[in-house]
């Protein structure tokens, strides 16, 4: 630790909004949803001429919301330190997914750190704990090298907490190396699509079993901390932590597909939810901090 690191840490720890994060030296964004949507939007699928060309996986997506986590039995739950959180809600159909995305580019291919306070729960349509109604909560990056720094790939690290599958409480972290086949869209030769959140090809993260706190009725939630470190130079994950657990990332890898002609220096980050029943799944983000070493 240099004197500058010490000073930076002291200043940040004096700020309640930052002291619950451990950011790298440069904060790219600190998104507290008490301030609004902070640049998080829908993941819309690609299309040309007609929206009918959009893959069904994307067509189901809808807009995230600013939510107070309201519940029919005790009212608004609120966030970690304010009234609002970003809510990602699926449709009420088994296997339905929804995604919120933020689209950036990077200025240095070096270490970046994603931190967030998150929680998830099913829609409380039954007077039952419903702990296996959510299939998963997860997040991903969509990254591509700079236009002169190649050769290289488009790289998409994915991690999801598989909470339940077909009613079985799984409670483990998984990753993905494969997407669906790349499919051209339209006739102009400019647009392609693939569905990287397809339910196939998830693999267990070695040692990735984790029992998260969930409360005793379907309306109560507890907030969780996550941190995911990634090196944009090596295009490798370097650290993954959720609450008190740090997971070894030796067995982790990303979806890697050929670089595309229009996505140079892309730095997209997204969070998603999936439901395991015909009931809406809700994922909530209280706040997200993305930082980098540059």
């Amino acid at each position: 630790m240099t004197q500058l690191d010490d000073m930076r840490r002291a200043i940040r720890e004096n700020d309640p909004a930052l002291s619950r994060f451990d950011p790298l030296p440069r904060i790219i964004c600190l998104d507290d949803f008490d301030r609004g949507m902070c640049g998080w939007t829908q993941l819309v699928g690609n299309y040309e001429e007609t929206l009918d060309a959009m893959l069904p996986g994307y067509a189901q997506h809808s807009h995230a919301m600013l939510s107070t986590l309201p519940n029919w039995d005790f009212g608004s739950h609120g966030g970690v330190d304010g009234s609002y959180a970003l809510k990602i809600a699926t449709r009420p159909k088994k296997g339905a997914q929804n995604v919120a995305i933020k689209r950036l580019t990077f200025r240095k291919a070096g270490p970046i750190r994603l931190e967030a306070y998150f929680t998830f729960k099913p829609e409380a349509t039954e007077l039952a704990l419903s702990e296996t109604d959510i299939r998963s909560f997860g997040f991903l990056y969509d990254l591509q090298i700079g236009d002169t720094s190649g050769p290289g790939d488009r790289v998409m690290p994915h991690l999801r907490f598989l909470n339940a599958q077909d009613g079985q409480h799984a409670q483990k972290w998984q990753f993905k190396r494969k997407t669906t086949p790349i499919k051209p869209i339209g006739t102009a030769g400019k647009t392609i699509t693939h569905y990287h959140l397809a339910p196939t090809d998830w693999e267990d993260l070695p040692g990735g079993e984790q029992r998260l706190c969930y409360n005793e009725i379907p309306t109560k939630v507890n907030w969780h901390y996550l941190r995911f470190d990634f090196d944009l130079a090596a295009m490798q994950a370097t650290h993954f932590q959720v609450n008190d657990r740090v997971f070894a990332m030796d067995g982790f890898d990303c979806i890697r597909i050929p670089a595309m002609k229009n996505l140079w220096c892309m730095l997209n980050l997204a969070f998603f939810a999936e439901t395991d029943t015909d009931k809406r799944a809700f994922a909530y983000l209280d706040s997200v901090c993305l930082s980098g070493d540059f």
Partner: protein
Amino acid sequence: MLPENLTAVVARNETWTGTSATEPYEAGWAREAVVFVRALKEPKGPLPKARIEISADGMHWCHEGSEFDLPAAKDAVTFQRISHFGNFLRVAASLPNGSEITVLVTIHLKA
């Protein structure tokens, strides 16, 4: 800071038949909303009025009282202004047998 202002696309290329509605949308932070409905394809059959519905919990819905025309032709647009709606908001319509409309529904919200 400028007040929050959001354009949320809550139904995109969804074909409505029978009793249909947009997914519940939480907007308790907003003081006002304008809902736009655009027909993305030529509608079929007689079209009923669309209605605004509100809810305490996103599961149990009440007719807010506002009704407005659904767009009668491809790319036609209709809208409804809403205020004082609490938190959960949706657009619903009950189409008669044989009627169909493919919609783009957008909610514009302002704090």
